[in-house]
Each structure stands twice: as C-alpha cells, then as structure tokens.
C-alpha cells in the first residue's frame, strides 16, 4: 500500500486504511509520519474528549453510553482506548471492547485499542497521532480513554479539548489520587455508578475541593452523577460536554489552546527527531562506547562528553 493510497483511503473514510495507518503509527513506521503530514490539513475538526479516572470507575461503560447519546444526536464517533502494556514482556491485554459491544456493528463508530508500549516518543506521541488519524478520517467526536493511575493520563489530556475525570462512590483513597494529579486537568467530573451508596457524598467532596481552588475560574468544572449501566445522567453529561466546547470557543481558549498545543507538539517532535537521530548515529560507535567506559572510570566527566558528542555527531556536517 503506497502512502498516497493510504492517505486517499483515510480521506475516503475506508476503515481498513484508518486501521492500517494507526498500526503504522503504533509501530513507529516512517510511513506513518509521511501520511500524517499529508493528512494534517484535513484535521482539526473533531471534538476530542479525554476520559480518565481510576481503574474500575466505569470509563468504558461511560464512553459506550456517551457514544449512544451522541449517535442519537447524529454524530459520528471514534474511540481510542489506551491500556498499559506490561513493562516486562511488552504485551498487553486490551479488553475495553468487551464493554462496547452495542456499537460493534455501527458503521459510524470506530473503536481502536492501544497498548502504551514503550514508545520512544512517549505515550502522547502515538496516541495523539492516532487521534489525528481518526480526526482526518472525519469522525465528529473522538474519545480518548486512559487509565488514570499515573503520569500518562496527564500527557494524553493535552490532546483533548474536553477532559472528563471519572470516579466512583466509596473509593476513599482515590480522592487522594485526584488531588495529587488530575484535579487540575478535569473540565468535567463524573461520579459514575450513581446507584451506589455514597454517590452524593462523593459529589460533595469533589465540589468542596473545587471550591478551595484559589484561582479565578471562567469555567467551573461541573460535578455530575451518572449511571453508565442505566444511562441516567448521560444526556446531561453530553450537554455539559457541548457547553464546554462552546465555552472554549467563546472565550478564545480554543485558539489559545491550539497555539499552545502546536508549540508543544513542534518542540516534542523536534526533541523526538533529535533524540532518535542521535541514538541512531551513536549506535555501535567505538568512541561512544569508549567514552562511556571512561566516564565510569572517572577518567572523563559526562557533562563534557555530552557536549562533545552532540557537537561531533549531531552538528557536524562531515559525519
């Protein structure tokens, strides 16, 4: 399959080409970048919604129900589910589709499961490129679902226009996690499984925490109750998601975010390229290996060697 075919296939909304492109992105194939650079001008239309929260907080079920509601409102949907890969084997068990069966034959819904792998460019690179591919494909709404257990979700939400943080009643310890990491990134809080005892208490707790946030907020994140099993609260959640997008547009934040994102991405890409190039050039070079040994023996220091190697391998035209 040539790059042109791939690009045309994606633009003509052929699912197999989209699947192929995302595979190339995941495999960090050089063709992926070429295709994406051609597709770039066709992106920027989709509303990207990040969904994150602790394991067991019903993210996939919530995304499934949100998809149903958006489909009722005639929107087309792309879903990227990111699950951790094993750091030891590199393998991953990706089970989010289990909970998304009701859309499994809907032509307007595309679901893709991704493992975090050990990407050179970090998780954000592959995920945001996959999102971009789905965007170019023409989906109106693109969900990015990640497990909120560490740093990764914070990276991923850089991609999203609207970030939903989910939690469930009774998970006392998780509130700490929210405090620590992802409180700041939420545009909407969802307390899922509203039928469980303690749901209202959880809402109150999160609201209380939002209230002590000292900075002036043009958008006060709403805290919503949902039940992804019965669908309760889902239409309200969709209304809030759309309201958030309107807020972004109206306040000029969308533009501002877009600029910031382009800046970040450009820097990120240059860093990635440079790192990759450097590591390729240094690979197996005797002077590189020798320098490492010298540093270990305290015969040389890493500060000087780093400067020298960069100057020699990255910026010297003769190599």
């Amino acid at each position, binding site marked *: 399959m040539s790059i042109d075919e791939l690009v045309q296939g994606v633009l003509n909304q052929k699912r*197999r080409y989209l699947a192929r492109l*995302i595979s190339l992105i995941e495999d960090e194939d050089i063709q992926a970048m070429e295709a994406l650079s051609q597709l770039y001008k066709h992106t920027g239309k989709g509303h990207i919604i990040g969904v994150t929260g602790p394991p067991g907080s019903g993210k996939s079920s919530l995304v499934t129900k949100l998809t149903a509601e958006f489909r009722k409102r005639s929107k087309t949907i792309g879903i990227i589910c990111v699950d951790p890969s094993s750091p030891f*084997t590199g393998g991953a068990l990706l*089970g989010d589709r289990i909970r998304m069966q009701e859309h499994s*034959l809907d032509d307007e819904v595309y679901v893709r499961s991704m493992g975090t792998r050990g990407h050179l460019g970090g998780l954000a690179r592959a995920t945001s490129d996959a999102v971009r591919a789905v965007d170019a494909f023409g989906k109106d709404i693109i969900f990015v679902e990640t497990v909120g257990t560490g740093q990764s979700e914070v990276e991923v939400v850089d991609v999203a226009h609207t970030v939903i943080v989910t939690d469930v009643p009774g998970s006392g310890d998780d509130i700490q996690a929210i405090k620590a990491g992802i409180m700041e990134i939420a545009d909407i809080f969802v307390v899922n499984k509203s039928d469980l005892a303690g749901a209202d208490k959880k809402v109150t707790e999160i609201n209380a925490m939002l209230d002590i946030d000292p900075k002036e907020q043009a958008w006060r994140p709403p805290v919503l109750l949902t039940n992804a099993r019965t669908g309760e609260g889902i239409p309200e959640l969709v209304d809030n998601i759309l309201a958030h997008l309107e807020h972004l547009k109206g306040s000029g934040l969308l533009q501002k975010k877009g600029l910031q994102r382009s800046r970040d991405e450009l820097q990120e890409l240059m860093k990635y390229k440079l790192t990759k190039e450097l590591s390729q050039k240094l690979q197996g070079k005797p002077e590189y290996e020798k320098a490492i040994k010298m540093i270990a023996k305290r015969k040389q220091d890493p500060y000087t060697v780093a400067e020298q190697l960069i100057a020699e391998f990255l910026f010297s035209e003769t190599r």
Partner: protein
Amino acid sequence: MSSSKKIRVLVAKPGLDGHDRGVKIVARALRDAGMEVIYTGLRQTPEMVVRAALDEGVHCIGLSILSGAHNALFPKIMELLKAEGVSDILVVGGGIIPEDDIPDLKKAGISEIFGPGTPLDVIVEYIKTNVKL
C-alpha cells in the same frame, strides 16, 4: 521493521457458549509472550468478529467454540474476511472440535485447530512462526 512492532491478536468467542476459561488463559499467555491481545467477550457474531479484527488491525484471530457450532461459524467468518479482501490475517481455532471436522475447517481457511490439552507454548510458537507482520 521497527523495534516497537508487535503482534496483535484478536481473541474471540463466536456463538453463544459461555465457557471462557480456555480463551482467557490463552489470551493471558499471548500477552505474556509479548503480544497485544484484544478480547471482545462472549456472544460474538461472525460480523462482529470480522469488524473488530479489521478495526483493530490485528495479525491473527483466535476463535474458541465449545458448543459444537464451529462448522457453521468458523467458515462464515472466513467468508466475511474474504469478502473484505483480507488474506493476510492468520486465523486459528480451539475448543471441542472433533478430528473429523478439522479438514473442512482447514479447507475453509482456518490455519490450525488446537484441541484440549494443547500446551500454551505450542499456541504461542505457532502464532509467532506463522503470523505475517
């Protein structure tokens, strides 16, 4: 080939039987062998299996049936794959499948059938060896 290239496998239970002990163990073993395993759960129609395989860009599909519906469902899945123009996905099956049925299933395009008692390593190795990356 890039270093981060991974074998992606869809593990599916077409039909209605709910015995998923085997399929879950195999899924876990494939993961432990470094593959990315997409599991879709019970009660998959052939259409659902094929759609998931294509969207997920898998290199291999592993099907498990213990109810005896394999003669109806395995060939149907192969037909749908063919109709989609797919020929590079390795398809293997497992479950309670009588020896006599295997030749016809292979003729329909199933590459290998793994019966009860197959060591996990055998399945892992078979996929690693035969998959087209």
